[in-house]
C-alpha cells in the first residue's frame, strides 16, 4: 500500500471513530455481553454463575413462562398496532383540512408525543382508579368498579392496550400528517372533478400514496408494542393473577418476574426477543413492501 493510501485509510478511520465509539459502548458491547451472559445460569447481583451454553435457549423455549409471555406479547401487539394505526391515520385525515383553528387540534392530537410513558401511565392510573377514578365515576360500566379494569383478568391487557394506543397516538398522528402533506393536492382535485367521492378519494389516493408512511408506522408500532414495559410495570406489575399481563419484556425486567434475579436467563430471553423482533420486522417489510408504491 502506498503512503498516501495508508494516510487516507487512517483519516477515514479517524472520521469513523466517534460513531464507532458511541455504537461500540452503547450497542455492540452490551449486545455481545448479553449474548455471552445468556450462556450462563444465575449471576444476578454478583452471585455465582454456571456455564450451560446453548442448552439454555432450548430450556427457555420449552418453558411455560416464556411461551405464555410470548402469547401475551403478540396479543398485545394485535390489540395496539391496528387500532393505533387506524386512530392515528383517522385523526391525521380529520386534521388535514385548511380550517380555522386546525392548528389547535393538531397540537392537541400530537401532544402525547411529548408525554413520557410514565406520565401517561399515571394519568390512566388516576382515570381508571376504581374508587376515585374519573372514568369510573362518569361511565356506567360495572367492570370499572372494584377491583377495577386493571385488576380484571379479561380486561387488564386491553386496558393496557388503550393506554399504549393513547401514548403512541401523537407519534402516529405526526408521521401520518407529514405523509399526508406529501400528497399533491392536484391528485385529490383531479379525483374530485372525475367524480370520486370522499371514501373513494381516501382509498384511491390517500391510502396508496401513504403506503411508505403506513409501512413505517406498522413496523415502528409493532417494535414498540413488542417492547412495551413501563405501562405494565406501573399499572399492573405483570398481573393480575401473577402473569396475565406479563409480556416478554416484563419477564426480562419485571420485579415480579419468575426470573427476576437470574441475569443469565434474562439475557437469554432478551436475545430471543431480539431475534423475534428481527424476524417480525423482516416479514412485515417483505409482506407489505410489495403493496407499497414509492413515489
Amino acid at each position, binding site marked *: 500500500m502506498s503512503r498516501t493510501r495508508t494516510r487516507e485509510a487512517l483519516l477515514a478511520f479517524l472520521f469513523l471513530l466517534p460513531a464507532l465509539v458511541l455504537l461500540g459502548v452503547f450497542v455492540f458491547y452490551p449486545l455481545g455481553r448479553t449474548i455471552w451472559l445468556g450462556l450462563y445460569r444465575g449471576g444476578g447481583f454478583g452471585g455465582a454463575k454456571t456455564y450451560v451454553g446453548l442448552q439454555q435457549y432450548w430450556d427457555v423455549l420449552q418453558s411455560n413462562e416464556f411461551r405464555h409471555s410470548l402469547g401475551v406479547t403478540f396479543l398485545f401487539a394485535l390489540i395496539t398496532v391496528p387500532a393505533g394505526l387506524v386512530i392515528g391515520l383517522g385523526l391525521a385525515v380529520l386534521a388535514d383540512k385548511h380550517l380555522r383553528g386546525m392548528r389547535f387540534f393538531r397540537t392537541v392530537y400530537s401532544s402525547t408525543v411529548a408525554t413520557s410513558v410514565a406520565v401517561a401511565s399515571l394519568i390512566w392510573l388516576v382515570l381508571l382508579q376504581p374508587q376515585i377514578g374519573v372514568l369510573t365515576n362518569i361511565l356506567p360500566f360495572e367492570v370499572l368498579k372494584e377491583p377495577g379494569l386493571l385488576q380484571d383478568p379479561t380486561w387488564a391487557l386491553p386496558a393496557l392496550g388503550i393506554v399504549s394506543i393513547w401514548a403512541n397516538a401523537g407519534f402516529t398522528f405526526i408521521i401520518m400528517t407529514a405523509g399526508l402533506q406529501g400528497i399533491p393536492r392536484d391528485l385529490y382535485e383531479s379525483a374530485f372533478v*372525475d367524480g370520486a367521492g370522499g371514501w373513494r378519494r381516501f382509498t*384511491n389516493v390517500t391510502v396508496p400514496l401513504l403506503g411508505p408512511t403506513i409501512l413505517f408506522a406498522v413496523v415502528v408500532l409493532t417494535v414498540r408494542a413488542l417492547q412495551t414495559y413501563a405501562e405494565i410495570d406501573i399499572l399492573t406489575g405483570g398481573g393480575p393473577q401473577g402473569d396475565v399481563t406479563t409480556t416478554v419484556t416484563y419477564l426480562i425486567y419485571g420485579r415480579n418476574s419468575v426470573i427476576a434475579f437470574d441475569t443469565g436467563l434474562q439475557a437469554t430471553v432478551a436475545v430471543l426477543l431480539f431475534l423475534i423482533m428481527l424476524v417480525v420486522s423482516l416479514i412485515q417489510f417483505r409482506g407489505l413492501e410489495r403493496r407499497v408504491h414509492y413515489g
Partner: protein
Amino acid sequence: MAGVRLSNVSKRFGEVTAVDNVVLDIGDREFMVLLGPSGCGKSTLLRMIAGLEDPTDGEIWIGEQLVNDVAPKQRDIAMVFQSYALYPHKTVQANIEFPLKARGVGVRERGHAARDAAQLLGLSELMSRKPGALSGGQRQRVALARAIVRNPAVFLMDEPLSNLDAKLRGETRAELIALHQRVEGTFIYVTHDQVEAMTMGTRVAVMQRGLLEQVGPPQEVYDRPASLFVAQFLGTPPMNVFQPGLLEPGEHLVGVRPEHIRLDREGPLTARVALVEALGYERLITCVLPNEVRVVARTSEVDGPREGEAVFIDAEPRHRQHFDVETGKRVEA
C-alpha cells in the same frame, strides 16, 4: 355538448380580488384560450368552471344549467392539470379508466373506452406501465386520454404543455388542435404562452389583474389590441410604444409592432443601433433613441444597419396604433 357562460363572475380571497366581474360567453365546441401573466386570475376562473372554487359573485352556466351549486361530478367536464395529476400507483390503463370507475361504469365497458382513448393518443403499447416509467410527453397524453375517456361536454386545461420541452410542446400543440376537432367538445385552455394562444385558440380571452381585457380571434387581438397591456403582452418582442408627440403630433401614446418599424435614411426620429440579433430567418435590431428609449425592429433584410450606426425610425400611418395616456385603452384615430 355545451357552451359555457360566465355572467359577472368574481372571486375574492379576503382582500384580494382574483377574478373581477368577468363576462364571457364561450360557444359550444369552441377552443377558448384564457391568456395572461401569472396571477391574473385565469386559473382561478378555470377552477370555478370546474367547481374547485366557488365564485363570490356571478353565475356560471354550462349549457342550459346554472352550475354554481352543482358538484364537479355533475358538470359534465374533464380537467387536465399542469402537473397531469396521474395516480402514481395505478397503471396507465387504470389511470385512464378512473373517471369511469368513479361513476360506477362496469369493468368491461370502461376497459373498452380506455382502450379507445389510448388508441386515439397512441398509448396502446403503454397500458400496463405506471406513470413513473413514462416520459413527460407520454404522461401528458395519459392525462389527455383520461380527460376524453368519458366524452365530456367541456374540457378544462390548466397549462397542460408547460412541463414539456420546447420541441415536444410544438408537436403537442398541433395534436391538441387535431384532438379538439375530433372529440367535438368545448375546450377552455389556460396558458401564459402567447404562441399557444395564437396558434390554438378559436378565440383568446386576455386577462390582467382579474379583469378581462379583451376577447376575440387571436389575429384580431394581435392586430387591434384593446389596450396597451394586450398590445405588449401579445407578440415577441413586444410592441414598441412612443410617447405622445414623438413619432407624430398628438396627445396619444403610439404603438408600432417591431415588424412595422422602418429603419430608413430619413424619418421623424433619429436613433443609434445598439444590438443586432440574427435569428437566421430574421433579424431583431434594437435601437436607442436620444432619450434612452429602446425601439426594436424586425426585418428579414440581410444587409441592414450594423451596431453603432445611426438610423432614422419611421412607421407607416396605417401601422400606428393609438392608446390613451391615462387609461391605456385603445383610441381609434
